[in-house]
């Protein structure tokens, strides 16, 4: 047995040899999917625990019996640095355990068939080709830009780093396998800071829209007014949002498949007299599989791989998959093409006078820097991520939060203050919510997880992030602003109030020092005593790393979406959003990409 197996057995309190073998194998698989630094971290963490075990008990971790393992866990969690290491190691291990130990709802009924897409793997794409326009990235922004340009009669090639996923895979493969495949770096992307922020990004034909929750908010008026003041033309933005909503078939989520998690959120909000409603989503036929984050097994969620991309392909656009854009080719200040790498390391080049960059907020600045176009001092700076946190309420009756709509209900009572609460429950183990404890107590929590209802809150944040790096790996730094930490604390208390109002016996705060609160006062105290570094955060919406605006000094991208300092390079993804959009940004990104693409000559 390896150090990792011992760590799995100790931290997750697994005693059955069969269970242990399966969960360990999963953990190994996760390790293999992680990028080298994270993989190294996981191994080093497990090795450290093993060494500590030898020092404390004289035995390797996997030589201890169950009782001594549990005692060792108690020892670890009582000491601050060791407790932090345990909390960090729990994230991948819970991911491994969650999908192994908890039942996954099966996908019943016939799925909607996949949309026809003209996808060619980069290995079969010629080394030399030409196009009227190349769109880098097939996510929300790229798909919309490609569709707009293709419908104008241009020959468009969409370059996608990921591959195409068919609905059959979403039905047949276990969620964890899909999860590791669908996300960049197996979903382990992080923004460094105190606290660190998990920053998962989809990597597939359709980008993050394949794995997002499907929540579709229109850009709030106050955000648009702020952008107008920065010189961004937003007069016709409403029309663009309308078109995007029609493309995605956005509608309010019917209550039927909402699931108990969402109903409890509605109930709690109603008792508090707070504004709450099922969210508007792009999944009119959602049956509540609760697996949005790992690809919808019914194709019910209309990611762009089911609408904008097939429409672009119908207009003649072609998608090259598994092609990682290496650099934009520039001659005398004019873009002339794109060079990309295939997985085997060989290169392909597409000559084109128009390059639309839609590689996502963390990758776009890197690509521009690799291309020698990263000269603007604001490029990569001022990233907003919508830091999000969550709490869970323990109920007497089973909730089975992973059965139903993954992100079901929006509570907008505090939205004016930049706090948006959404009932969000991921598939088992995939939630960023850290169950408290270690060893047998954690195992009991896992076995009891079906009684937990989970709420999440994201806040409108200051542009506190920065994307460093000029090679292939983005080094993201995010320093939570003081007022944002305060806002997150307020959000934690507000979510707790909703859960208590809905009848929760206790609330799991996710805070390492005070993981459980039995009433509001206890919760308020626990939150007030927690340092910012104790908050467990995930950022799902990185935006604003190549801001659009009229001010040349502030914005690397001009109001029409052209990158300043070069001709023929347009940015059409979340990078261009001038400030935090304050809502789930899919509609905003797509409408912005539509507007930018319409202006490309």
């Amino acid at each position, binding site marked *: 047995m390896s150090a990792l197996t011992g760590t799995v057995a100790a931290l997750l309190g697994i005693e059955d040899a069969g269970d242990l073998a399966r969960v360990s194998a999963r953990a190994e698989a996760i390790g293999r999917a992680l990028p080298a630094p994270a993989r190294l971290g996981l191994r080093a963490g497990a090795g450290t625990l093993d060494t500590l075990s030898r020092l404390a008990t004289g035995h390797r971790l996997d030589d201890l019996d169950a009782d001594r393992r549990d005692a060792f866990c108690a020892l670890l969690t009582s000491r601050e640095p060791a407790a932090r290491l345990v909390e960090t190691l729990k994230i991948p291990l819970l991911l491994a355990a969650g999908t192994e130990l908890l039942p996954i709802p099966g996908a019943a009924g016939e799925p909607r068939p996949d949309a026809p897409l003209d996808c060619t793997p980069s290995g079969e794409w010629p*080394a*030399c080709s030409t196009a009227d326009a190349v769109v880098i990235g097939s996510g929300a922004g790229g798909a919309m830009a490609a569709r707009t340009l293709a419908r104008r009669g241009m020959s468009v090639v969409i370059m996608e780093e990921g591959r195409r996923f068919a609905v059959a895979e979403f039905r047949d493969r276990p969620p964890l396998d899909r999860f590791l495949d669908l996300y960049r770096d197996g979903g382990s992307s992080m923004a460094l800071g105190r606290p660190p922020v998990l920053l998962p990004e989809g990597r597939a034909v359709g980008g993050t829209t394949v794995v997002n929750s499907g929540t579709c908010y229109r850009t709030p008026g106050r955000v648009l007014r702020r952008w107008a003041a920065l010189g961004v033309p937003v007069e016709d933005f409403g029309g663009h949002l309308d078109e995007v909503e029609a493309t995605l078939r956005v509608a309010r989520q019917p209550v039927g498949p909402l699931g108990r998690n969402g109903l409890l959120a509605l109930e709690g909000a109603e008792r508090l007299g707070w504004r709450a409603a099922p969210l508007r989503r792009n999944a009119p036929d959602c049956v509540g599989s609760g697996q949005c984050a790992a690809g919808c097994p019914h194709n019910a969620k209309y990611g762009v791989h089911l609408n904008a991309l097939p429409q672009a392909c119908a207009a003649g656009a072609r998608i090259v998959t598994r092609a990682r854009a290496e650099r934009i080719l520039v001659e005398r200040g004019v873009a002339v093409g794109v060079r990309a790498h295939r997985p085997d390391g060989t290169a392909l080049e597409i000559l084109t006078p128009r390059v639309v960059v839609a590689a996502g907020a963390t990758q776009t600045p890197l690509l521009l820097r690799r291309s020698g176009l990263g000269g603007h001092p604001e490029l990569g700076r001022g990233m907003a991520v919508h830091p999000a946190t969550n709490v869970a309420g323990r109920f007497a009756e089973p909730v089975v939060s992973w059965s139903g709509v993954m992100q079901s209900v929006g509570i907008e009572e505090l939205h004016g203050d930049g706090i948006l609460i959404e009932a969000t429950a991921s598939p088992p183990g995939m939630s960023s919510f850290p169950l408290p404890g270690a060893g047998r107590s954690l195992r009991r929590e896992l076995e009891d997880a079906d009684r937990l209802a989970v709420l999440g809150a994201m806040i409108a944040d200051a542009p506190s992030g920065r994307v460093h790096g000029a090679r292939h790996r983005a080094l993201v730094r995010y320093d939570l602003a003081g007022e944002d930490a305060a806002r997150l604390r307020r959000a934690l208390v507000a979510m707790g109030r909703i859960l208590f109002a809905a009848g929760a016996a206790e609330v799991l705060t996710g805070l390492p020092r005070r993981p459980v609160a039995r009433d509001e006062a206890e919760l308020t105290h626990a939150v007030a005593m927690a340092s910012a570094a104790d908050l467990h955060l995930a950022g799902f919406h990185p935006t604003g790393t190549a801001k659009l605006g009229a001010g040349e000094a502030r914005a690397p991208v001009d109001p029409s979406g052209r990158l300043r300092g070069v001709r023929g390079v347009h940015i059409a993804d979340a990078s261009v959003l001038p400030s935090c959009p304050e809502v789930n940004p899919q509609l905003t990104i797509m409408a912005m990409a539509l507007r930018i693409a319409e202006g490309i000559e």
Partner: protein
Amino acid sequence: MTTPTGKVASGRRTVFSEVMEGALRLAGEDGERPMRLELTASLPGMLRPWGDVEGELSGRVRVPGWADDHAAGSLRVAPVAARQIRYTLEFIAGDGRRLRLDGWKTVRAGRPVRSMTVLPLTVTDADGAVVGEARLRFDVRRDMARFLRGFRFPGPDPMRSRWRGQAGRLEVWYTTLTDPATGTGVWIHHELVAPDEGEARAHGWAAVFPPGETPVFGRFGPFGWSHSEDADFAAGPVVQGGGRLTGAAGAISWDLRESGGGPPLFTFPRWAWRSEVLPAAQIVPKPAAAYDGAVRFGGRTLELDGARGASARIYGHGNARRWAWLHADLGGGDVCEIVAAVSTRPGMDRLPPLPFVRLRVDGVELPGGDPLLAALRLRAGIGLPVWTVHGRIGDRRIHVRVTLPQDETVSVDYADPDGAPAVCHNSERADVRIVLARLAGRGWETEREWRLDGTGHAEVGLR
């Protein structure tokens, strides 16, 4: 020809040949086929490694069992400025499809030799669908020496206009051809006159000479002159350039494509054409060209398919005082070109006509030396309907007799840049007899003799 930056290149060009070999993988086939490209590039200006030029590319695509065809296209050479050498070619595959080859070498500082010798190519059809992908390589060890030896830097295209805005200049482009099927001659004359005073004007005429009939004649212009990058001559509907002649004059209209032509024939010395020191000079940039297309005249249409003819040029101060001209296509690329003229310059106008003779036979040109020196040993008798040239060419004797049939001759009035009038009598139905004799013992022995019955292109200009 311009560079991609829009700068007009100097008149000199860079010509070189290149051979690349490799493999072609066709879509839907598992295996690869051997492929060979034999290319000749012609680029504007002297090739500079740091420059960025685009020029013509022609050659042959060979893929055994699939394609073996002439290919033509363009080549961009910018190894430093854009780190790219791009080849674009069109050819016809064995199955009749018109296909396009497009590929480029992306020059990488880390691997300069490999990146500049390996060429990935994509073959697409007319709809842009990918037909195949090739990877070719220039064999440095085998071909480098030959590649470097093959570099040539020829002078400017003799068809391009030479006029640079001076007053008192006359520039002429004229094309004469005979349809082998009907014996009909076609003469298209483009002229730029920059008078001593006033605006330059472009005009000209066309004539068709059906056998046994009165020639059909029509004028076009005058039009204002504007320099064109795309054409050698462009005035109103009349355009000559890029191997194509189109236009209309009176009852005649034409749309012709010119191909081949052989190396230019310098009737006047090369130095005289370049330096412009003589009152005027004539050369034949395309002495043995073929013409395809249609000529419409007086309600009739003459379809041409490989008609033989030539395109010639004159540049100078004006017409001669008296002159005679002959273009005789002797077949198989052999031609005889004669200009006999008396200058209008005071003093020189009293001299006898000076005959410039160029005879190209089996690829050898006679006389061998300078045409002006050779002209001193020849005599011409200019007259109508018959004019003659005779004298010595090296150790040979030549006798040329040209007869212009009166009924099949058109007379055209000209005005020199100084306003002086001249009349030129043109016929493409001239009978020509050329005898080349060699000294044998004490007498002359006929070495070669040519007779052209009604297919000689000739004119006689008088005042």
